[in-house]
């Protein structure tokens, strides 16, 4: 077993490399992904090893990237598109929602479009406008798409490979603020199967930490925040369980419900605005399914109903340990 400690970003690169190795129909395409290796270097070295026809520097046009990826998929390819930053996915939003998400449905299963759209997302990196957003709810609200976000290097490695073999389109949100967080990665872990036999490797949540007093539900960049909050809460005598959703669509409701039934309290943490955000759906589902186990209303911690603010104030926009602990206090006060 070749387990190595590596940053999240390198685990993604290794996953992409494995996907390209495993299937010569897999392609990486996007702006600057070739010679430069992408602005975050996630595709570093891939063009050198796989060539310009498999790691493609595209014109600077997001709708064009996703639209041509759909055509390539119809021809039997498995395109892995990189959108450079979260706020730049919107030119492709039309192709993603009106075409990519619907082709399997409107063809009654005759067309598969196994396209992966990778999007570095989230804040905390001191960036200018359009470089720190969390638009995942917009995609989760679209039937036909899978929407996922890994939180650990191992999941980055496993989930990108699972996304590439998925026959359904996958919007793959990468927590760019965690790109350089390190963790252990087993590079020999098998390619996750989506044949429906076992647990859905792209749709199954993970208990990141067990606890008994409150369930913290997070994904992507806020899993680390929730884990840090759980440490702080433990010091105060509160035992927090942390659920790493991994997938926003589909939601692994049973795992969340099972946890909340045990703890009686639920706090959802994400960077996306809370208003109509993933936490709203989670709160509704938890309320529907755990009503008689709940000791307190479901609490939500997330971004505000403002455009993503300027870098100098983003620390007060993003959920942090204090705000998570504050929400837990509210839940415990009932």
């Amino acid at each position: 077993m070749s387990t190595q400690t590596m940053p999240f970003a390198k685990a993604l690169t290794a996953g992409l490399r494995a996907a390209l190795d495993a299937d010569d129909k897999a392609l990486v395409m996007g702006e600057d992904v070739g010679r430069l290796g992408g602005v975050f270097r996630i595709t570093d070295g891939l063009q050198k090893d796989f060539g310009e026809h498999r790691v493609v520097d595209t014109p600077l046009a997001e709708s064009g990237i996703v639209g041509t990826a759909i055509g390539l998929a119809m021809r039997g390819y498995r395109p892995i598109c990189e959108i450079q930053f979260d706020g730049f996915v919107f030119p492709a939003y039309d192709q993603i929602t009106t075409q990519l998400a619907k082709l399997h449905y409107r063809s009654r299963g005759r067309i598969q479009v196994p396209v992966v759209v990778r999007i570095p997302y989230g804040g905390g990196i001191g960036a200018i406008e359009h470089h720190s957003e969390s638009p995942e709810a917009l995609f989760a609200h679209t039937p036909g798409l899978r929407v996922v976000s890994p939180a650990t290097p191992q999941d980055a490695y496993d989930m990108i490979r699972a996304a590439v073999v998925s026959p359904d389109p996958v919007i793959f949100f990468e927590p760019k603020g965690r790109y350089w967080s390190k963790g252990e990665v087993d590079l020999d872990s098998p390619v996750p199967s989506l044949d429906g036999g076992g647990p859905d490797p792209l749709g199954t949540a993970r208990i990141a930490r067990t606890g008994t007093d409150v369930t913290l539900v997070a994904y992507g960049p806020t899993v680390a925040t929730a884990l840090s909050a759980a440490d702080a809460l433990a010091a105060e005598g509160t035992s927090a369980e942390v659920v790493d959703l991994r997938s926003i669509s589909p939601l692994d409701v049973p795992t969340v419900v099972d946890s909340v039934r045990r703890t009686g309290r639920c706090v959802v943490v994400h960077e996306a605005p809370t208003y109509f955000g993933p936490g709203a759906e989670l709160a509704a589902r938890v309320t529907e399914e755990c009503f008689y186990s709940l000791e307190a209303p479901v609490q939500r911690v997330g971004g505000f109903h403002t455009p993503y603010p300027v870098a100098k104030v983003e620390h007060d926009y993003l959920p942090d340990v204090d705000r998570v602990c504050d929400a837990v206090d509210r839940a415990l006060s009932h």
Partner: protein
Amino acid sequence: MLNAPEGSDGASAEGVPFVQLVGPDGRRTEGAQDAAYRDRTAHLGTEELRTMYRDMVLTRRFDDESTALQRQGELGLYPQGRGQEAAQVGSARALRPQDFVFPSYREHGVLQVRGVDPVDRLRIYRGTEHGGWDPADHRVHLNTLVLGSQTLHATGYALGLQRDGLVGTGDPERDTAVVTYFGDGASSQGDVSEALVFAAVNNAPVVFFCQNNQWAISEPTSRQTRVPLYKRGEGFGIPGVRVDGNDVLASYAVMTEALERAYAGGGPTFVEAYTYRMGAHTTSDDPTRYRERAEEEEWALRDPIDRLAALLRAEDRWDDDWAAGVAADAETLAERLRADVRSIEDPPSVSMFDHVYATPQAQVETERAWFTTYQDETAEAAR
């Protein structure tokens, strides 16, 4: 018309030259400028011309019958293609079997030539399917209603053909091209420009076949462009040609040129087929609100079917028995549509949950299960 460039609007733009091999009177043109295109049709004999005529007649009968079925409440909507038969049939008859077509939604003549079943073509308007046929069967993608989106899919498909080694082999059985159909309205969509960029920089084997039918619902082409559309490709490095889209032979000829370029690895071509939407945008539209009767009458004189009929007669290729056979085929088609469209069964409501994903998805399956139970219980209660 505010800001309308001189002569870019409808019939007034006759000053812009286009490829024309048969004039409105059904006589072959003799201009030297079109000699190369003329050569491309020299091999088309009586049988081939009659085939094109039959395609066009059947396409129009399909159009008329579908309009009638909509009026009778059998279809929710129908977008009429009347007047565009020559552009569609001529271009589609130039394709090889292995070529792939990405249509918009008014390409009834293209679907006719490619053999897509006429009843299947109407499922979308009957409200029983969003698609209607298997794209692999006739190498025709489903209709795309979001204007211009399909030009990117076509370009992506063409990039795949390049990777599959199906361009520039010199083998007519292998070399493959893609054609995407769109209109003057769609030409303003950003996706079309992005498709032109991607196709050009990659030298992709794709033909952009723009039917300029003069009207995007109520907006004349002058609201879409200040230069003739065939020039749209120029800035992208894509050669363009304007063809008389009511001349089936000219449409065929320019398409063979574009396809040969694509097959050989010469890259994309922008074809502007200059034609006219004789009918309404759809059965919900009322053209009397925005265009003059005189304009419609003027274009009626250029009816593409009449023109080909006149050519066949002028060249002694017409035969009354054969023509009666074509008319009988059209009647058979109409009878079949009347019978079979009416008998398309409504799908069960629970089928709405099918095919959202290729793999089972928890949310869809949860809702399907809930709906099934709800329906059963409601039925039980009603009993």
